[in-house]
Every structure is written in C-alpha cells, then in structure tokens.
C-alpha cells in the first residue's frame, strides 16, 4: 500500500491513498486534475460564472464526501462528470421550474420518426459556431451531446449517468441532434451574407 501521493500515480491509487491517509497532497492532486474539467461542465450548462464557481465547490464537496462510495466500476472521470451533470441539471430544474430542460419535455418536441442527423453535421462546425448552436438548445439536450461527443461516453455509461434506459438515451441523442441541427439552420439564416 502506498503511503504518499505523487504526480505519476493514476486516479485509482490516489483515491485509495487519500482514503487510507487523508493526506492533503492526495486531496490537492485530485482537485488539480479535475477542477477545471468540472468548472468547464458547469459553465457550459449554467452559463453563469458565479453559479459555475459555486457549483464547482458543491460538486467537489460531494466528490470528497462520497469518495469511499466510488466503486471503480467506471472511470473516475465518468463518475466525476456524472456528479457534475446531475448537479447542474438538478440546479436548473429547481431554478426554472416551468422551463423544459430536455426537448421531449417541450410542448412540441421534434418529430424523430424518419429523420437521422449524421454526426458530421455537428462535428464540422467551427468551435465558435458550435458554442452558439449549443447555447440555443435546451440544456438537457446540450448535456446529452456533451456526454456523447465531448466525453465520448458509451450509451451504457450515459444511461447510468442519467438513470434512464439505453433506448431512452438513444432517443434523447436523436432528439438533441435534431434540435442542434434546427438551431444551426436558424443561426445560419440569421447571419447576413
């Protein structure tokens, strides 16, 4: 058993050493590896710097207080992102009680019966345009797209993060892609040639 944390250790060893020793160095290592990543998720979903900072603090409290429950069945990053996504979605649900967070919760959800959006429609966008497109779609849809294309989570991982069946996740991805495509078209139409 290792008694000290050092830069070269992988996440699993740092966590185990932290749980055994409560050493400040392990705490600092975990924070330095993940703080910017957690903040990036929070700012993407909450779109507010102060709220994103407060959320990062709360999420790290949850991470450290529940570290012993991390079973290492998934990657540590997936577990951290799972806490981050769920915290932000719950926060927005409390704040925007009447506003739909996922497009299927909207009054007129996009019809997905025979439409398929190829990945390249979203992956070929410039970063600046992509940001604008994502900012115009419901935040739940944005979270689903981030999990798929940014974190490269599998359907199984996404279903465990959002606590939904795999078929429900596939449907959510399809709807989110359609919503993003609509957003892209309206954004392009609004830009004067």
């Amino acid at each position: 058993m290792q008694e000290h944390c050092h830069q070269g250790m992988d996440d699993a060893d740092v966590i185990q050493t932290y749980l055994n020793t409560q050493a400040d160095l392990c705490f600092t290592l975990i924070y330095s590896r993940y703080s910017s990543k957690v903040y990036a998720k929070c700012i993407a979903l909450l779109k507010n710097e102060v709220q994103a900072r407060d959320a990062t603090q709360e999420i790290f409290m949850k991470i450290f207080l529940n570290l012993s429950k991390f079973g290492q069945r998934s990657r540590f990053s997936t577990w951290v992102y799972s806490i981050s996504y769920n915290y932000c979605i719950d926060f927005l649900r409390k704040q925007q009680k009447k506003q739909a967070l996922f497009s299927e919760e909207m009054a007129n959800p996009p019809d997905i019966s025979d439409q398929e959006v190829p990945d390249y429609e979203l992956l070929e966008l410039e970063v600046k345009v992509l940001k604008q497109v994502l900012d115009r779609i419901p935040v739940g849809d944005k979270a689903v797209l981030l999990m798929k294309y940014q974190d490269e989570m599998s359907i199984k991982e996404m279903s465990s993060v959002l606590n939904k069946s795999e078929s429900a996740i596939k449907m959510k991805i399809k709807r989110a892609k359609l919503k993003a495509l609509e957003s892209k078209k309206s954004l392009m139409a609004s830009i004067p040639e």
Partner: protein
Amino acid sequence: MNNFQQLFEEEKASFEEQRRNEVFNKVHSTMQFFRMLGDVAEVYLTGMIDVLSSAAGPAEEIRPRGPNASAPDRPTDGTEPRGPSEPKP
C-alpha cells in the same frame, strides 16, 4: 480532438488560477472542518456514552415472583385489604 473537445479545452482555460485557488481553499477548509468534527465525535462521544451509562447506575433488579412471594393484593400485617368487602351472611 474534435470541435466539442476543443470547446471543452477553451472552457477549462476560462477557470482562472485565482478563482481555482479560491474554490480550493473553500473546499479544503470545509473538508478539514468535517474531519475535525469526525475526530471530536470519535474521541469524545464514546467517552461521553461511557460516562452517561455509568452515571445512570446499575440496572434495577427485577425480583422474580415465586410461590413464597407475598401477594400484592393481600397485606401481610393482618389488616383487611382495601376495596369492597364480601357480603356478610
């Protein structure tokens, strides 16, 4: 790296060092406070439970009711028991 991941890198970079340190200090001090509470509970709570249980004294002895135990409804000093008497012949 795809465009989603490039966006992630940009958003990660927007968490300035000063802000990152501020959040670190808050999380760290809260965790230390919780750890201290845990230590206090571990050291003092077990001792306090021992003190309280010894202050409460030994458990009251329960006497078994055997055939020689006096009946509570019949005084042993010869006086008549309280309550309605039997009808006189």
